[in-house]
């Protein structure tokens, strides 16, 4: 006898409300068949039966059930072929094979949803805040193994060269998965960058504050106004918004791009951001970032403005929902009150996971960002 349980769909989830049963009480269901709809505070989710059997409803529509609580029980309709074999097995001669067959690898299990991952990979992913659903497994039968989640973190003492390779592999794997799975929509605009230039002029020489830092501050605050883009998408499709903005910033290193996270960027001053960003970039370039610094981002900023890049369309970094790409600040002719003027302008592109957000949100973010540029400090802290 197995059961249909309430899955843990997000870390903060404690219970769900049974919204609608999709099958009747006593119906025979297949393994994998969707049987019930439940509502959490974030989303409505359909849950499948893990095994075939006769469904006995335990929680009626409208009931509130805690995570791991029983929604229904599944009675085995007939003994499965496997259990029949076991019953017969006593007299069967064991097959003398030197190792277990590959077919013993489990297919991904539904219900308590999660991909197949080795215990070690689960631990590393947990420690790094990597969402297993976004990772493609390269192990046997598609099992996610530690190399898929960045290998063993540096503090466990492995040679850093190996660690770098594995990190790169994980990044590449994530990019590939994101490219393949995420339907992108790009919302771009040429924003007024006057505020950015003013803030730059106000920075004391040697203070180490860069345009990237300004973008971090402005974007973090802008995301406060468009919270649906400060979010990650779960494998079941629900979108979990984050209260705080943990901004990943793309850093180019000799080994490839990495994205360390500036935690709670929305509460930091420009000087704070500069300090944190500087340390993270340094660590990234030396390959000494640890797992915690690479995980938990809720949105990514990629600034190619140091190069003659006006506009680019990045790949969203799954499971995040949005990535903001900034080009260089450059003086451009603009129309001001009917007259021609020269103003500093910056192209910004908001790339979105269209499953989780609409273009309209991208537009709102661009507007908020442009406004935040004007609010950048004219003097530093």
């Amino acid at each position, binding site marked *: 006898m197995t059961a249909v349980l309430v899955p843990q769909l997000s870390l903060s989830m404690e219970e769900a409300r049974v919204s609608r049963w999709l099958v009747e009480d006593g119906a025979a269901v297949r393994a994998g068949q969707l049987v019930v709809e439940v509502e959490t505070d974030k989303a409505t989710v359909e849950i499948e039966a893990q095994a075939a059997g006769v469904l006995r409803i335990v929680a009626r529509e409208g009931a509130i059930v805690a995570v791991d609580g029983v929604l229904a029980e599944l009675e085995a309709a007939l003994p499965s072929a496997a259990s029949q074999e076991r019953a017969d097995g006593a007299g069967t001669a064991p097959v003398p094979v*030197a190792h277990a067959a590959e077919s013993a690898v489990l297919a991904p299990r539904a219900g308590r949803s999660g991909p197949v991952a*080795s215990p070690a990979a689960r631990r590393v992913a947990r420690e790094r805040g990597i969402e297993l659903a976004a990772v493609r497994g390269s192990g046997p039968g598609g099992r996610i193994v530690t190399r898929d989640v960045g290998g063993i973190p540096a503090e466990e003492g492995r040679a850093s060269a190996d660690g770098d390779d594995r990190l790169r592999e994980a990044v590449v794997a994530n990019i590939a998965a994101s490219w393949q799975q995420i339907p992108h929509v790009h919302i771009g605009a040429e924003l007024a960058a006057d505020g950015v230039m003013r803030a730059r002029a106000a920075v004391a020489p040697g203070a180490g504050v860069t345009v990237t830092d300004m973008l971090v501050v402005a974007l973090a605050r802008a995301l406060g106004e468009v919270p649906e883009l400060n979010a990650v998408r779960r494998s079941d499709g629900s979108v979990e918004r984050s209260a705080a903005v943990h901004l990943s910033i793309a850093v180019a290193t000799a080994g490839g791009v990495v994205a360390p996270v500036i935690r709670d960027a929305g509460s930091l001053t420009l000087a704070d951001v500069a300090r944190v960003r500087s340390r993270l970039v340094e660590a990234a370039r030396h390959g000494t970032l640890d797992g915690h610094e690479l995980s938990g981002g809720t949105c990514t900023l990629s600034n190619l403005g140091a190069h003659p890049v006006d506009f680019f369309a990045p790949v969203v970094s799954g499971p995040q929902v949005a990535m903001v790409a900034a080009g260089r600040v450059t003086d451009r002719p603009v129309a001001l009150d009917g007259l021609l003027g020269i103003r500093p302008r910056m192209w910004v592109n908001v790339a979105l996971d269209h499953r989780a957000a609409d273009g309209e949100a991208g537009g709102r973010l661009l507007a908020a960002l442009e406004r935040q540029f004007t609010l950048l400090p004219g003097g530093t802290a």
Partner: protein
Amino acid sequence: MATTAAPITTTLTMSEAINQALREALDGPEPIMIIGQDIGPYGGTFGVTRGLFEDYGEERIRDAPLCESGTVGYAIGLAVTGVRAVCEIEFFDFVGVAMDQIFNQAAKLHYFTGGKLTVPLVIRTPIVARMGMGPQHSQSLESWFMHIPGIKIAVPSNAADAYGLLRSALVDQNPILFVENVRLYGRRGEVELGEAIPFGRARIAREGTDATVVALSGMVDEALVAADRLAERGISIEVIDPRTLAPLDMETILDSLRKTMRLAVAHDAHRTLGFGAEIAARCMEEAFDYLDAPVERVACLDVPIPCTPSGIESVYPAAADVVAAVERLVA
């Protein structure tokens, strides 16, 4: 050779190393008798006790009649009354005949007498695997004894370990099963004379990063050959030789597993309930979150061991099987 104060390093075969350790004990002050079939003038079926009879005499180097049970029983009687006993069982397969004396008597006497009796008994016996002697003369049965609390087990894979572990065994107050290996008797190695190796300390035979292979007895060499082959493909394995199964140095194995996250066990014993089964269970219990793949077992097939050469080849594991297991681990 008399015992020396300063360590001397010399090259010996495993057989010579065992012989040397026995001599050192015979030269010592403690009364000791070596007893078993054919160990006297014949020097032992595999020549390990060669020369002892001539040098130490028939009272101390005593051929016993062909009765393993009675012989081990007599050895226990000697041990509990102040004479250290070293009993040779000619082939590991013959332990069955002496089973009650080993697992019910020797292993338990100290315990059920509340510590009143001690049993300083070493039972030496070789694994005679891969020699084509057939099902009753080919088995590795060490896991049977891991199951019994009260008996220590040593499984040396080289001359130095054989010497060092036997030296420890010969001053231990407990019953010890000392598992030798006919295929390894002739292997030469550097032996540091005068040095005892404590039980419960594994040896890292080769360091590596991608997978751990825990190998016993004859499979240690096979694992090292596999390591070379794997290295050519860029896979680095760590080979651990536990050396003693009771007490077992699980910490060294677990430390390695936490480093590599992949583990295979290789032994000549049958797969089912061989030593590998215990290691797999403990890895799962004590380091579940460090397993990147299931524990692999490279073992003798679960069939009685045939005589024919092609049968032996197919039944026993070899370096190629270790390679294949590691490849599955890193897949």
